[in-house]
């Protein structure tokens, strides 16, 4: 019984990690709605935001059910404070210019696509089902971001400089992808979570050729900032949540 309860606590935390990263990054992408560099790209960014929001809903809905305390996806999204969020730090960084946004998409999709592929074999059937849908979406996002990073890196002098700068700025958040939290360690042993250590190789195999074709200098991913998975965030997340949660908190229980 205690073993089952412990696994459920871990599963709740893990579903939050997946859901929060998708929710926070989806919110960042949605900030581009109406401001995309072209009409087609504006639509693309909003579509990708929608994919991520969909993944977030599935994960948070499941987290709420695993927790069993009656919290639904909205309660988890809108009524938790920043220290209760478990997203990767890269997701909460400001959207920056278009190069920052695309480099971040490349990193996130380059990591999550093999992560979901691994989760499709999870012993938890709900996570496996969510992963089977999300993996296809991540493959599509990866292709989209890859094409843009090549176009920007191998583009004009200005776009090259900006994309290299974005790459160097975002690189410090990559090491966290492959860090193994205590929750993940136990769930990997239980056959439920994707092993972050096993994802480094597929991540590098998918993004390195893209960065080289983009004529960019591949940064080192050896060291970087950690803490998102344990709830240690920067103030960017607090401000993002302030904007995202204000309506729901001002009008509790409001529906369309």
């Amino acid at each position, binding site marked *: 019984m205690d073993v089952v309860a412990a696994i459920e606590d871990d599963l709740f935390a893990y579903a939050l990690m997946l859901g929060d990263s998708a929710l926070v990054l989806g919110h960042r992408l949605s900030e581009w709605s109406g401001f995309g560099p072209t009409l087609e790209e504006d639509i693309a960014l909003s579509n990708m935001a929608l994919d991520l929001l969909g993944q977030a*809903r599935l994960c948070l809905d499941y987290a709420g059910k695993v927790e069993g305390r009656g919290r639904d996806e909205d309660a988890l999204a809108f009524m938790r404070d920043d220290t209760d969020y478990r997203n990767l730090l890269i997701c909460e960084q400001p959207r920056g210019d278009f190069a920052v946004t695309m480099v971040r998409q490349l990193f996130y999709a380059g990591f999550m696509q093999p992560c979901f592929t691994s989760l499709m074999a999870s012993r938890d059937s709900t996570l496996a089902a969510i992963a089977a849908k999300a993996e296809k979406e991540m493959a599509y996002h990866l292709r989209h971001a890859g094409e843009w990073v090549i176009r920007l890196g191998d583009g004009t002098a200005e776009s090259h400089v900006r994309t290299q700068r974005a790459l160097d700025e975002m690189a410090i958040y990559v090491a966290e992808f492959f860090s193994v939290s205590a929750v993940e360690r136990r769930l990997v042993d239980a056959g439920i979570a994707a092993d972050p250590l096993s994802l480094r190789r597929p991540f590098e195999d998918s993004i390195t050729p893209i960065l080289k074709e983009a004529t960019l200098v591949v940064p080192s991913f050896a060291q970087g900032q950690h803490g998102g998975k344990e709830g240690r965030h920067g103030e960017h997340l607090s401000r993002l949540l302030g904007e995202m949660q204000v309506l729901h908190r001002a009008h509790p229980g409001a529906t369309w």
Partner: protein
Amino acid sequence: MVSPAESDVAALVDLARARAVIEAVCDPEIPVLTLADLGVIRSIEQRADGKIEIAITPTYSGCPAMSAITVDLHAALAKAGFDDVTITTVLHPAWTSDWMSATGRAKLRAYGIAPPAAKASRRALFGEEAAPACPQCNSGQTEKISEFGSTACKALWRCLSCREPFDAFKCI
């Protein structure tokens, strides 16, 4: 007095009627397609007490049409006299464009949307897909404008022969 055999037949007739109503409900974003054409209905069952249980699956995780589809299903079934209905969403197995019916593909083309290629492949996800034929003039000379179109399930293309832009259903 109704014999058990007769009530069984009545139940089957009831279920067939419900099935026809459910399958004829249209996708709210691509109204030319029915839910049966789209391949999103996973199961339709009727319990002993008459309750209809439907399982549907989303095309994309964030497909905003799912809640509209649920509302439309309840409304269509209520109109046909089925008031006791539950609709659940199932994720597994994940929807693929392979599940779209041949009728659905023909309807899409007639509507001006290039249907998905016959068989979704992993290679298509990484850009090695064949160019769709223009739904207006059937020319194979087309180019992609954007990976993402007017809904999550479509991309934006342009015909190089007749110069018309068109939506193409993504092959996933």
